[in-house]
């Protein structure tokens, strides 16, 4: 196994890159260094047959010449020459670019908070054998559910990521984190009919996973999706689980709160700060320091401290998400939401842990609120939503019909069409059962007046 790179090495690599860019004539410079290692055990057709170990390291350097921004990256960081070449390339890119009159400089140094539960040395020390055992537990649990269920793919993975940021304003920071996850996709077959793929997962920054639960739930969901019935087109109450919310929000709501989109008139939230944009039941925070959060880190992609930012409080729009550039344009401070695609990109605004605050209803109580409606687990085609207007037209697959507070049967070919900004106003209850999925931390949500299109 290849050892992880040391803190001091990563920081000095970033600092050296900044120095060489300044020496080459940049007026400002910033370097981001990334060291990622991952081990994955893969399931294919119900058996463990794939393993991989991926080491990905690199450095991205952003330079400013006369208010024009250039960026270059390399994944060869063992050689000082390639790092210097990257600085040269970044400068040539900046010179080829055009000055941006709105450019007001890289971020200044600030003090950092500590984060809780984001690094677990046990995960770094996990051997492939350990991960294979976890995978086998998950598969065994799935196999015990029902003969009609088939685990098709999934696996278990562990990851370690360290990064360092340095810039010409004196930022020199290092952070590291771990994650372990397991997931299973299963379907059920009944004669010639096949269910949609049903998916479950568990992910954690510490070595705490419940692979048996994942295996069981994926298989149970698949079995419960057998024998779907068509439904009539109607306007109904709908419970959206976290899977559906994550899909729907990622391409609409999470875009609308980015300051960049607001400034460019691409968000219906423009000019709406302080106004009611959602039901009073809805409060959303972007919490970059959420304990054990999957996106929790000390600093963002520019070395700005991550923080907790209220976005919507009791339905009232409170703030947007900022990186340094968009914040200075509005005369504000960055909210620490500059994210990076590893070392390969310049920072761009993204939510950290997008936290929909829990309400008071248990899942059973939410179901009990629905005389006639639907519960939706997975959506197909959410990425085809209109990112500007918030309109969506997607397939709910699978989804289940609710009758008199109980799940009655799975449904075939159901579509859901509407507008996310209307949906926000139609949220009548928020559950207590929160969990994290990607950047979303949320419970189930019950919305009314949803357009459901059937046969």
């Amino acid at each position: 196994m290849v050892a992880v790179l040391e803190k001091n090495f990563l920081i000095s690599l970033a600092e050296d890159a900044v120095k060489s860019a300044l020496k080459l004539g940049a007026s400002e410079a910033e370097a981001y260094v990334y060291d990622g290692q991952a081990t994955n055990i893969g399931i294919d057709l119900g058996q463990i047959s794939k393993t991989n170990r991926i080491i990905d390291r690199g450095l991205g350097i952003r330079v400013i010449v006369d208010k024009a921004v250039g960026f270059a990256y390399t994944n060869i960081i063992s050689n000082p020459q390639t790092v210097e070449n990257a600085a040269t390339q970044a400068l040539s890119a900046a010179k080829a670019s055009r000055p941006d009159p709105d450019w007001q400089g890289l971020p200044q140094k600030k003090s950092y908070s500590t984060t809780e539960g984001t690094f677990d040395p046990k995960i770094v020390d996990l051997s492939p054998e350990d991960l294979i055992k976890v995978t086998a537990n998950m598969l065994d649990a799935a196999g015990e559910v029902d003969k009609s269920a088939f685990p098709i793919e999934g696996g278990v993975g562990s990851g370690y990521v360290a990064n360092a940021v340095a810039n010409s304003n004196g930022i020199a920071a290092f952070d590291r984190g771990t994650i372990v996850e397991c997931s299973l996709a299963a379907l059920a077959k009944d004669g010639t009919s096949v269910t949609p793929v049903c998916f479950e997962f568990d992910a954690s920054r510490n070595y705490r996973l419940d692979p048996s639960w994942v295996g069981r739930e994926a298989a149970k969901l698949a079995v419960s999706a057998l024998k779907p019935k068509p439904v009539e087109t109607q306007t109904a109450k709908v419970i959206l689980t976290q899977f559906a919310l994550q899909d729907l929000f990622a391409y609409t709501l999470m875009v609308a709160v980015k300051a960049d989109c607001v400034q460019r008139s691409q968000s219906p939230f423009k000019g709406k700060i302080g106004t009611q944009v959602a039901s009073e039941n809805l409060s959303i925070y972007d919490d970059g320091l959420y304990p054990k959060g999957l996106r929790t880190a000390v600093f963002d992609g520019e070395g700005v401290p991550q923080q907790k930012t209220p976005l919507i409080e009791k339905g009232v729009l409170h703030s947007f998400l900022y990186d340094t550039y968009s914040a200075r344009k509005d005369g504000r401070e960055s909210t620490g939401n500059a994210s990076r695609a590893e070392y390969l990109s310049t920072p761009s605004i993204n939510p950290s842990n997008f936290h929909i605050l829990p309400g008071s209803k248990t899942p059973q109580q939410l179901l009990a609120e629905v005389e006639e409606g639907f519960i939706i687990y997975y959506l197909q085609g959410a990425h085809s939503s209109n990112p500007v207007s918030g309109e969506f037209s997607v397939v709910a697959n699978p989804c289940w019909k609710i009758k008199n507070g109980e799940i009655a049967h799975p449904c075939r070919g159901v579509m859901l069409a509407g507008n996310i900004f209307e949906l926000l106003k139609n949220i009548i209850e928020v559950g207590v059962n929160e969990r994290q999925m990607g950047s979303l931390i949320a419970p189930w949500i019950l919305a009314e007046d949803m357009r459901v299109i059937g046969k």
Partner: protein
Amino acid sequence: MKDVLQKIIDTAVVKFGAKYAEARAQQLTKTMFILKEERVEAAKQGIESGVAIRVLVNGAWGFASVGSLDSAILEAAVSDACSMAKMASERLKNPIKLASVPVVEDHVTAKPKKNPNSIAMEDKIKTAFVVNKTSLGFDSRIKSCGLDYMDLMGTSFFVNSEGTSIEQDKLYVWARITASAQTDGTFTFSRDEIGSTSGYELFDDQPSEELGRKVAKRAIEQINAKPPKGGKAPVVLGPNVVGVFVHEAVGHLAEADLALSGGLLGSNLGKKIGSSLVTLYDDGTLKGSFGAFKYDDEGVASHKTLLIKDGIVSGLMHNRETAQKFGAQPTGNARAEDFRVEPIIRMRCTYMAPQDHTLEELLEDVKDGYYFKSFRGGQASLDGTFQVGIQEGYEIKNGEIQAPVRNASISGSTLETLHKVDGVGKDFALDPGRCGKGQTAFICDGGPHIRVSEVIVGGSA
């Protein structure tokens, strides 16, 4: 480079007992920039070099990738790959075997008319500016526009333990153009993508002004568009939508790994699943198209693969592992996004073959339906439910294209819908795209105009 790879393979086979080993190396440079309105957000250049090693030990796969050519790191990687495969193999019920393929030694060079690396970044940015300027100037209601540009050039090397040794140039030029309009609280959005494996001459074939105008016009047109009525309706689909329909509704189900996982096409080989008008290909040999290449990432020559002939399932897209399971020939569909990841079965250029209708003939029998011209996203499910989002669509009333509709999507079951294709046009067009299946692949799809007698239209009205 090939010597380094050969040495890794020898180590895997001789020292660690791998039955099969392959090594891929990649040396790429990328140029990218993002233009938002008339501002360059950042001009970017990058280098990505690395090695991937994949081995079969006792019938299980081991894979390791590193961004390094350092011999100690490569030795550690090959050791990791082999030992992990060995551990995984202990629980294996069905050991993996590979279909045999010809041993290849080849050197494939890109021959662009305009090499992207010989065009100065200033000039690329200048061209992009024209696109955005045209878009912004098209109508005062266009409030923002964007252009993401990327070109990628480099070489990939492939060597395996069977004696295959390939050096292959890679070249992609791609751009995504967006525009959004706003008026009185109505927001609209429009997008387009262009892409080629030929060279920077792409921008000669597609003039910048034309690109900007097209995207802006669509955003403006949508301002007055109404949501369509939800429910079943007859539709005429343009080539741009047909491409995504074919890709989502059939293509993914015809990927042999998904077919084995329970996808509906695996069990329907040789059976009629659609109207006789439906003939589909996945073709990796169309020179210059965004999904074209000579050899895939298992060293297999790319084919023109017949998927459906006159409504009958005729073939699937394979890698060497699935071809062995089906007793079929590998089709050259094993693709890895880059050196970091394993090759998996991906589409190349997927299209419906044209027949004999004109657009007027397709429209004339539609009393009350929709004409869907341009897509925005789409997604398949193994149970054969497809979804294609629509960014440009119109009502059809009594055979005439009428008022625009906004933010529709179509859905249905593949097996039912292919039977409902009751008219196929004689025109033909392809569009580049990107497909996500854990990894991103550059693909292409298209076909002629077609008419479908019934799909579910997801509209909020």
